């Protein structure tokens, strides 16, 4: 019986004018565009320089800043106010003001200061930019310090798993998760309720099909769609960005299949409780946005306050993003991921049980 029901679901999806296109085109479009957009790399921050000193020292400092990959000295301004107008027009992000007699004071008293004003409206770019710029200035002076007192402790740094600090490598696995969640969450959420709206659910309700079988027949097509989408995005990630999982592909598919069950289960639960597609869509959106925001996709979970970390703890997407990033970048095995796997398995079981229980054959 299950076989025929699944056949029916696939026919319903394939004969829809819009869905098969969406399932194929949406992932491709997202994978082509989004890794380029989701980029918090700090580079090419535009600096306006107000040089009131015009000495050898100030020129040296400006050259040092310009030579860094983080900054471009975009404009020279006559005065601070002039530079402030540039910030207001969005032409530059940071103002570096060098006071008069800077070189002389530096030589004489060793404590002349430059002023850095950051346009802090742009969160990361502003904060990081300001910090980097002070660092570069400190480096400039410690490099000039001839007494040799500065570098007593030598700090050697080593970056593992993503040595080139490529932001795309970090975002691609997370964007894959987002895609999978959106497609395998929204489509099931609209499914049962669309049968309710169309009235075809009545026909199912008068058949001897058990609830369990019915829910399964709704789940399995999305599970298979999940696999198709996943395969497309893995291939695209490999071809376009040269990013492929360091860990085993089998582990990857195994865990992804559990995750698809989680989101599809959630979608079916919402579908069961909704009377119209509009309702289902909005409830799903509501949960989706919270899930995406609280998943550590855009900002690290560790930076959240404690109550928010608790919410993140009951967010299945957060665990899967962790799994994806660990598999893709670190090549972690199943044993490193037990915590996340347990969480996902629990979510999958809970949501799908709930979906079966909440589905009522009586009106």
């Amino acid at each position: 019986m299950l076989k025929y029901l699944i056949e029916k679901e696939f026919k319903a999806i394939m004969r829809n004018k819009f869905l098969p296109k969406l399932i194929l085109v949406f992932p491709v479009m997202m994978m082509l565009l989004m890794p380029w957009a989701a980029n918090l790399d700090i580079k090419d921050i535009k600096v306006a320089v107000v040089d009131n000193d015009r000495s050898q020292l100030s020129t040296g400092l400006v050259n040092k800043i310009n030579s860094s990959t983080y900054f471009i000295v975009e404009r020279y301004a006559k005065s601070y106010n002039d530079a402030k107008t540039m910030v207001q027009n969005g032409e530059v992000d940071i103002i570096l003001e060098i006071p008069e007699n800077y070189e002389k004071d530096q030589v004489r008293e060793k404590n002349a200061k430059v002023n850095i004003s950051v346009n802090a409206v742009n969160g990361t770019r502003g904060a990081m930019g300001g910090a980097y710029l002070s660092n570069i200035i400190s480096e400039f002076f410690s490099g000039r310090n001839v007494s040799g007192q500065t570098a007593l402790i030598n700090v050697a740094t080593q970056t593992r798993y993503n040595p080139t600090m490529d932001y795309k490598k970090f975002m691609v696995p997370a964007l894959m998760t987002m895609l999978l969640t959106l497609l395998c969450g929204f489509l099931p959420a609209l499914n049962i309720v669309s049968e309710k709206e169309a009235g075809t659910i009545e026909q199912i309700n008068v058949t001897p099909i058990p609830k369990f079988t019915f829910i399964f027949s709704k789940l399995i097509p999305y599970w298979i769609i999940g696999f198709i989408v996943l395969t497309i995005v893995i291939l695209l990630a490999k071809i376009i960005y040269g990013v492929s999982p360091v860990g085993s592909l089998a582990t990857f598919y195994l865990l992804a299949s559990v995750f698809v069950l989680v989101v599809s289960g959630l979608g079916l639960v919402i579908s069961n409780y909704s009377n119209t597609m509009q309702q289902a869509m909005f409830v799903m959106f509501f949960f989706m946005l919270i899930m995406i925001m609280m998943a550590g996709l855009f900002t690290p979970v560790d930076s959240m306050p404690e109550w928010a970390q608790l919410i993140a703890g009951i967010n299945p997407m957060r665990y899967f993003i962790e799994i994806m990033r660990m598999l893709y970048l670190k090549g972690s095995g199943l044993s490193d991921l037990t915590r996340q796997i347990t969480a996902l398995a629990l979510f999958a079981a809970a949501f799908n049980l709930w979906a079966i229980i909440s589905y009522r054959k009586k009106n």
Partner: protein
Amino acid sequence: MRQFLTFVKKEFMHIFRDPRTILILLLMPAIQIILFGFALSNEVKNIDIAIYDQSHDVASRMVIRKIGESPYFNLVASIDNMNDANKLLQSGKAKVVVIFESNLYNKILHEGRGDVQVITDGTDPNTSNAVTRYVQVIIAEAQQGLTNNYMPVNAELSMLYNPQMKSSYSFVPGVMGMILMLICAMMTSISIVREKEVGTMEVLLVSPMKPIYIILSKAVPYFTLSLVNLTTVLLLSVFLLDVPISGSLFWLIIVSVIFILVALSIGLLISTLVDTQVAAMLISGLVFMMPVMLLSGMIFPVENMPFILRAIAQFIPAKWYILAVKKLMIQGLPVKYVLTEVSVLVGMAVVFTTISLKKFRIRLA
């Protein structure tokens, strides 16, 4: 006019008789603003750190004490071999391991040079960068303490417009753009397409009302609802998140209303393009939400993107709206600084409305 009002009333009833949707429509903005404002932060903190101290002397202890005191770090383990360090990093239990070579203090005193190794988990490049910087600063401070050789402060940093560096300052304009877009575009398109799908559109079209008024009456309730949401968001951000409205409230509202009109016209456009609710929802939801989140500069700076994406971003209304809100609300600039943004938004509203009115078919196929 009375006819028109009757139609508007009908649309309002559609909304009010579905309590779940209305609840979500009103709650979603509030919850998002709170989550964004309080929970999300770009600042890197609470980093799990592990220490491998081979030295156990004054120098290493001093650094370790400073790390323990730092609000950025969370000391999770002291280990005594490299194997453990690898395991901690691999399993993600520590984001950074600091390794002190043996006899560190002696080497500093006699050879004038000691080595400390910092291994970071580079999965997240920004976190890893920040962590490295934090550790370097802590070690530099410890070194000053050890040698009594204070380094002069070279630069004074001031944060314009956002002195406390709150993330909510940059997120609030983004959330406003996203919520208004989502609600207006999606709701309008769904409610029109729904009438097509259910078949009641035919009934409306044979009524003596002009088709344009039918469409307008669909837009009025969602316009009102968006104004309610706008008020909620502004009140919450001012009184709960302490994000000030530094500029003129009047112009902020005007710009928002223009943006709402753009979103409504996009909703109309979608409704003329598709025939089923599912398609309308998925287009307005997936095809609009993702780009708005990613390309509008709400989270990721547009300046960082390659040329093609920057070009695409110019066509995203939310991008212009967010820019204008940042300038008006956070930076407190006078309205002449947002003229470009405003005219682009007005232009978009005109273009979208014209296209959708042209495409709106009075006759059903």
